[in-house]
């Protein structure tokens, strides 16, 4: 066999070397953002930066508290989260199911992969006019757009992960007399998991973007509606609050995936310093 031996000792040593890179201490890195916010506040208070362009930080914080107390913000968050959750669920199930079908059978590959590769070239935000014609302007086109945005990165990454499985491990599985089902369960799917999780992270990022775009279309609830409504009244403070909430929600879902990664790929991190 001409394939090189898996020299795991080397990876081990590389991990140790990485550990020696000094971590940037927190405080010095915080100084410049703090200074920027202070400058922003000063510019706002002195009237240098008019409020119809952008509100000052203190005003934005106060608005955030007001919106929360009035219940506007929590309601908007719940509506938006629901759209993302439902759209994500539909898109994830479709993306993973298609990837499994295409990755695990020749027939599936020929039937599914060519159209998927063609469709991925489509700028999917451009589908909004069609979606409005098909689904109207209610919840459906918003959820459909999120689902579509989620399905593709998950499909592409999971499929690529299955295809990139180390043939030597599959062969080892065969020698151990694993049947097809056992081979898929013990060898192919775990091997594809790291790449599938990369797809999961990408798809969650896209889910939020798709939601923001979809919510610009005639929403009567949700964060997008709150932002659009604020534009009418030139409430830049409300707009910024909406944007910050979008970012925080995006960061939270990303942290969730990272947590899942740490749990699911513990075998890979076992030899890396925590």
């Amino acid at each position, binding site marked *: 066999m001409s*394939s090189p031996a*898996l020299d*795991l000792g080397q990876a081990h040593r590389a991990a140790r070397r990485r550990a020696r890179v000094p971590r940037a201490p927190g405080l010095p890195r915080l100084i410049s953002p703090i200074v920027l916010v202070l400058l922003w506040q000063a510019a706002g208070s002195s009237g240098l930066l008019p409020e119809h362009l952008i509100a000052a930080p203190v005003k934005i914080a106060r608005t955030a508290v007001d919106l929360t107390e009035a219940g506007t913000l929590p309601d908007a968050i719940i509506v938006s989260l629901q759209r993302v959750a439902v759209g994500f669920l539909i898109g994830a199930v479709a993306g993973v199911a298609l990837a499994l079908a295409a990755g695990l059978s020749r027939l599936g590959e020929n039937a599914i992969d060519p159209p998927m590769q063609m469709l991925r070239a489509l700028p999917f935000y451009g589908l909004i006019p069609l979606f409005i014609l098909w689904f109207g302007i209610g919840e459906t086109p918003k959820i459909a757009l999120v689902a579509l945005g989620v399905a593709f990165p998950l499909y592409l990454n999971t499929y690529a992960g299955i295809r990139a499985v180390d043939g*030597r491990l599959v*062969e080892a599985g065969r*020698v*151990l*007399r694993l049947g097809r089902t056992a081979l898929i369960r*013990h060898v192919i799917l775990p091997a594809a998991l790291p790449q599938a999780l990369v797809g999961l992270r990408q798809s969650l990022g896209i889910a939020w973007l798709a939601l923001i775009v979809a919510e610009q279309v005639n929403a009567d609830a949700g964060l997008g509606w709150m932002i659009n409504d604020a534009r009418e009244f030139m409430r830049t403070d409300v707009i910024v609050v909406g944007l910050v909430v979008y970012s925080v929600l995006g960061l939270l879902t990303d942290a969730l995936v990272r947590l899942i990664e740490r749990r699911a790929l513990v075998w890979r991190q076992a*030899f890396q310093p925590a």
Partner: protein
Amino acid sequence: MAASLPTRVTGSVETRAAATARVASVRGLTRVFGDRTVIDGLDIDIERGEFVALLGRSGSGKSTLLRALAGLDRDATGNLTVDGTVAVAFQEPRLLPWKRVIDNVALGLDRPRAEARQALEEVGLGGLATAWPLTLSGGEAQRASLARALVREPDLLLLDEPFSALDALTRITMHRLVLDLWTRHGRKEEDAAGRGGLSVLLVTHDVDEALRLADRVLVLGEGRIAYETRVDAPRPRSAGDLIGLRTDLLEQLGVNEEDR
């Protein structure tokens, strides 16, 4: 249970009841890659309980033959009979990195994990049962791979240059371990029918390794067994015992006096 054989290999797979003295018998095995005939009408017999080493220069078809015996090559033609179960340890350990060592050993077994644990004890890895494969050293991983092969109680153990990636010191330890396991499993497996136990086919390019371990050394050349010799010296053997054989084998492999 019989080994699953390549479809195009014609030949019968005998049951355990009709056990013969041979664990494997190959007649006229041929394997062509493109217009290159790597194995050309090769014949081999492996006796029960026998330790055979297969030498050959790189590209001589050693691994091709081993893959055919393991049932991994569907495009080999000829007559190949394996009476019993086959297990393989590859050059790279090929442990599944997402399964702990013990789960790698127990993979595909429907028996309890106690046996896997015992197999790990046998190769001296009892303490690393719950370790992740990526944390093992090369020698440890190769031991785990041996345990995974042996826990299946094979009649024929195929070793595909399993020590070539290890450092010299680890290799010596592994040689002792393999001989030890072979001896032990040979006795354990012996049954009323008087069949010997574990047979080993070791593919290697290391003449000294072959001489130290094997009962019989074969040299593969031109797609057939070009040379064959028995090694009768008692084990443990030292390099000095076998100077004559060593010279013969190196000559067969095309290594001249000046190269040595």
